[in-house]
């Protein structure tokens, strides 16, 4: 049997290529907080308390625009509604672990840690919850350290990365690398196409609701596509 440390290292190795994308994003989040006159504690502390890039950026922007606090909180949370979907998707994988362990896993949830764990264990029914948790933590802890370091650096130095380098492009590219191998049939392809198109159409929705609405539509489209295919097969 493989020693437990091996699972952490597997998780870290799977996460490694995704870490560079978090650096420019984190630096921007830190730099924007500094420009919005956050103190160092709040500017860097939000990375610990919120730990979600898009949400931090949107909230900081709204603070700078002197938006009402309720609007800021609502916007920050709506962007993170997708985490409830991830949580439901991960729940069966982590069932049986202690609540403390599951709380730690929940705190470290990111798009990357979620996508890596599901793409690795989604179809694998043999791995136990403890193994999956170690894989998830190996990458998740590394991402947390990088995110904190990047926002702190961005806060203190400003974002030193010129926009013309387009390093922000790392983020959609790394999600693309996780998305494509997961498209295995017509139903998942339908879900992906619907999610993508609705997300572009719904860009202007209030409170940044676009992402959640697009994700919900994509899931519904995939579900329906699968249901129709099954009905067709049953009719034969």
């Amino acid at each position: 049997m493989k020693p437990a440390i091996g699972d952490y290292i597997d998780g870290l190795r799977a996460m490694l290529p995704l870490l560079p994308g978090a650096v420019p994003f984190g630096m921007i989040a830190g730099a924007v907080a500094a420009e919005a006159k956050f103190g160092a504690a709040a500017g860097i502390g939000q990375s610990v308390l919120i730990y979600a890039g898009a949400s931090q950026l949107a909230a900081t922007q709204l603070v700078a625009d002197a938006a009402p606090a309720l609007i800021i909180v609502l916007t920050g949370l709506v962007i993170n509604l997708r985490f409830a979907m991830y949580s439901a998707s991960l729940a069966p994988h982590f069932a049986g672990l202690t609540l403390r362990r599951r709380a730690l896993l929940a705190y470290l949830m990111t798009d990357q840690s979620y996508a890596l764990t599901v793409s690795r264990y989604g179809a694998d029914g043999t791995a136990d919850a403890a193994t999956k948790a170690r894989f998830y933590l190996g990458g998740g802890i590394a991402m947390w350290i990088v995110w904190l370091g990047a926002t702190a650096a961005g806060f203190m130095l400003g974002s030193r990365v010129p926009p013309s380098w387009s390093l922000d492009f790392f983020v959609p590219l790394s999600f693309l690398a996780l998305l494509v191998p997961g498209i295995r049939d017509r139903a998942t392809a339908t879900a992906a196409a619907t999610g993508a198109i609705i997300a572009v159409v719904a860009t202007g929705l209030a409170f940044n609701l676009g992402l959640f609405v697009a994700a919900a539509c994509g899931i519904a489209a995939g579900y329906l596509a699968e249901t129709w295919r099954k009905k067709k097969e049953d009719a034969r």
Partner: protein
Amino acid sequence: MSTTALWLTIVAIGIGTFVLRLSFIGLSDRMALPVAMTRALRFVPAAVLSAIILPAALRMPEGGVDPSLDNPRLIACLVAAGIAWMTKSVLATLAVGMGTLWLLQALL
């Protein structure tokens, strides 16, 4: 915004975000998910990731969305998707995608 109000705002988003993350993971020992929901959850990665990718791929450096087909980011994304499809390698996808974007930006 006062320092206290700023902290309260950050803490409120932080607690709410943690609750969203913990929601189903926290309840996993007390309830089993309905079959229909389990079936729907299979589509979460495809639906959410693509909904993050396409708007980001069409975003212009100076803000706003450029849906035209000669948008270098869109072309680089399509090339990278092909590489991801063929190699299933994250590193190869990142390298070719970034390389394509830089090349197009230098040429266009």
